[in-house]
């Protein structure tokens, strides 16, 4: 239990109104009733050094949209939120780059970028998703095919380390090899090495033309190969397959780019499947589904396979998963198993290893998570992972227990 004295010190470090008691929030089966929200980046640094001095571990959170991802927390006593460290700090419309504080929601950053004639190349699901949370989780949405991954769009990151040191890496320019590329290390590190304060991001040009269309297909293997082919046309920005068990496959495609290319690609699509125009919210639907499938108490895996193995992988899961969502251009397959279906884990592990696919367990009841490492069973880089955690967060204050190897 955290002492009252420590709580007072933390509240003082984090600034006015920063310590909030609330109803129980369960992360896996671990209850949290207190959240610290430092009022500024400086306060975040002070808070971390106070946490370190008091020996208190925290669960770091942004908007909370990806809070379910990770192994069950172990020994964290508070939540540490970046939500008050928010705002678009700079947007250079001439250069197509921006700097946003960690707690900025994607929605508000996107609106500012669009108003300056640029597109924000992050489209992770989750209404309240924040820049810091999305980078920490390396979370992606359907448009990752066209936008690239978070790692491709991060130019610089400001990070407060476990000892409270406030650091930065990278920069605001679009090409940079000055020092180690810690951007890559922090992106996807799930707050296990430090707390992201802000980031420089690359923006992308707004496309002149966008088309959204969809097709229904009977055969999953056929849909996967059509999806791979379509993902390779020049203007493909999102290509997503979705299938509920026993139903037809829905293939949603978004093309974006210059008008002549989009027109040409649209014609090419017609020869692969019977496409019709899709409702404007089709992509948002799938983005949402990607994050919630398969509903309460179910389990969701994300598998990554080479394109040539994606068809066989999908085939081996289609009769067992309650729902499949596939981004063929990225080699990603999300498989949802309803709570009533036992054996999802073994099935996924077997299917994955038979085609050389890696997997992570994105969502599951705590009981399932306690049976396995949610980062999968491939521990080849575990020693290095451990050494990094040891160097950056030797006392294990940040998201203890949550990362690969339950670090």
């Amino acid at each position, binding site marked *: 239990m955290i002492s009252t004295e420590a709580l007072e010190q933390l509240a003082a470090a984090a600034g006015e109104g920063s310590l909030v008691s609330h109803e129980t929030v369960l992360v896996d089966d671990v209850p949290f009733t207190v959240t610290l929200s430092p009022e500024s980046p400086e306060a975040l640094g002070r808070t971390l050094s106070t946490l370190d001095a008091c020996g208190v571990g925290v669960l770091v959170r942004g908007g909370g949209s990806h809070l379910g991802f990770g192994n069950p927390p172990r020994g964290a006593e508070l939540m540490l939120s970046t939500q008050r460290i928010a705002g678009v700090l700079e947007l250079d419309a001439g250069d197509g780059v921006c700097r946003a504080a960690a707690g900025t929601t994607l929605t508000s950053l996107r609106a500012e970028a669009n108003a300056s004639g640029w597109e924000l190349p992050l489209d992770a699901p989750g209404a309240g998703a924040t820049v810091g949370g999305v980078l920490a989780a390396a979370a992606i949405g359907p448009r990752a095919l066209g936008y690239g991954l978070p790692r491709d769009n991060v130019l610089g990151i400001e990070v407060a380390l476990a000892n409270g040191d406030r650091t930065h890496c990278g920069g*605001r320019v679009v090409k940079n090899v000055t020092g180690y590329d810690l951007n890559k290390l922090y992106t996807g590190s799930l707050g296990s090495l430090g707390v992201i304060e802000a980031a420089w991001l690359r923006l992308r040009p707004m496309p002149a033309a966008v088309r959204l269309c969809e097709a229904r297909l009977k055969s999953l293997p056929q849909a996967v190969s059509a999806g791979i082919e379509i993902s390779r046309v020049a203007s493909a920005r999102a290509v997503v397959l979705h299938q509920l068990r026993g139903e037809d496959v829905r293939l949603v495609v978004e093309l974006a780019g210059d008008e002549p290319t989009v027109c040409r690609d649209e014609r090419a699509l017609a020869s692969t499947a019977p496409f019709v125009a899709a409702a404007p919210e089709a992509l948002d639907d799938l983005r949402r589904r990607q994050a919630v499938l398969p509903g309460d108490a179910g389990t969701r895996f994300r598998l990554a396979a080479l394109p040539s193995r994606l068809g066989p992988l999908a085939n081996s899961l289609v009769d067992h998963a309650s729902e499949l969502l596939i981004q063929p251009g990225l080699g990603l397959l999300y498989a949802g198993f309803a709570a009533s279906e036992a054996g999802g884990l073994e099935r996924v592990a077997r299917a994955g290893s038979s085609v050389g696919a890696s997997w992570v367990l994105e969502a599951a009841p705590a009981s399932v998570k306690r049976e396995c490492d949610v980062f999968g069973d491939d521990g080849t880089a575990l020693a290095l992972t451990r050494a990094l955690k040891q160097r950056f967060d030797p006392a294990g204050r940040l998201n203890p227990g949550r990362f690969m190897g339950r670090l």
Partner: protein
Amino acid sequence: MTPELLSELRAIVSAEGCRSAPDELLVYECDGLTLHSRLPEAVVLPRSREEVQAVVRACRKADMAFVPRGAGTGLSGGATPSGPAVVIECSRMNRILEVQAEDRYAVVQPGVVNVMLSQAVESLGLFYAPDPSSQLVCTIGGNIAENAGGPHTLKYGTTTNHVLALELVLPDGEVVMLGSPAGFAPGYDLVGTVVGSEGTLGIVTCAWVRLSPLPESIETLLAIFPDVVTACRTVGKIIESGLVPAALEIIDQRTIAAVEASVYAAGLPTDAGAILIIELDGPAVSLPPQVERIREMASSEGASRVERAADDDERKRFWKARKGAFGAMGRLAPDLYVHDAVVPRARMPEVLTRICEIGDRHGLILCNVFHAGDGNLHPNIAFDRRDPDELARVMQAGEEILRTCVEAGGVITGEHGIGSEKKEYIHLVFSEVDLEAMKRLRAAFDPDGVCNPGKLFPSTRFCAEANPKARGYDRVPFE
């Protein structure tokens, strides 16, 4: 170095794979940065990952540092030993092990020469996108270590966007597989972390790299400007307009003159103040409107004419001039200092004006040929290092150039790396605590600082003095 270590190394890599005679070592005394030089204790040329591991273990046992090396074209002293060290040269590990056209990747050994990979997969309609101007010689291993870019980085990204997985021999001799050919390997992005780490985190012995489809069609334009500033403004306009050309490269007047007087002559107009090469690629239907827009932008910024390469031969000729520019500058003086810095693209006109002023103020021959689309400047200074006064002015000008770029919001290297060259300047960009975070990374991979020591981090007398066993120079207590 002890005779025992030498004979152990010979036993591992065979006698012809081990060089230790002073005249043989001379070739390895520096890389493309000739200002820094030091003879290695020995050079080994392993043929396999197992041999690399055995060499590393032998070095560790003998308390000897080691330095990986590719073709030695690096421009920041990365492959030059900073202290007593064995150089591990990867040129005998030069096979393309696998090409998977359907899944668009190749598996290569580190010594594969960059251009050879693209040549090997061309018939499959594929290419390896990172194309440093040194691609005829430099190796994929060196490219990975430096996160090399090239003219086409603007559209295709740098090396880090094209490496899927790595086999790495760690500084303790263990081997680890990082990443996955399918991408999305769970856990930290260790591939992204190792790419660009300048050979200080281990030795890459195998790489899985992405292959990209050859563009359907290409248009190459050459716009002729009265000066560099107007060419830069055009680049800013193109970027702001949202067009993403494959390449935007500027060559200034002095460079044009040098190129035209050399074997790389491409018939460039020697009276032009600057030339902007604009390459567009993509679907054939998309290019004509883009060409028109760019023509308009260039003309409105003062281009006197915009030529279009009529065919592939002409296109290659334009590029030969660009890629041969550094070589051509060899005509101007015995030495060439190739600088490398990046600034926000909108700031290029003012920064270049200041850089030229710096060169003039120090009475130096300074030419610019650079990746303008990325804001990546290469001010090159031709000089004679035998003239100590001139050398001092070159160094002074170099520092002023870096400061100017940093003041404009930029950084001190975009593709050549920090190496030994810029380690004392890294403070211009990063604070002590920023560097401390990087040292934590270093220590996780190489706690004893034996893999390419003396690079990237500023030398601190404190470390070497406080720890007499530190061959690592950059070794500091972490906790």
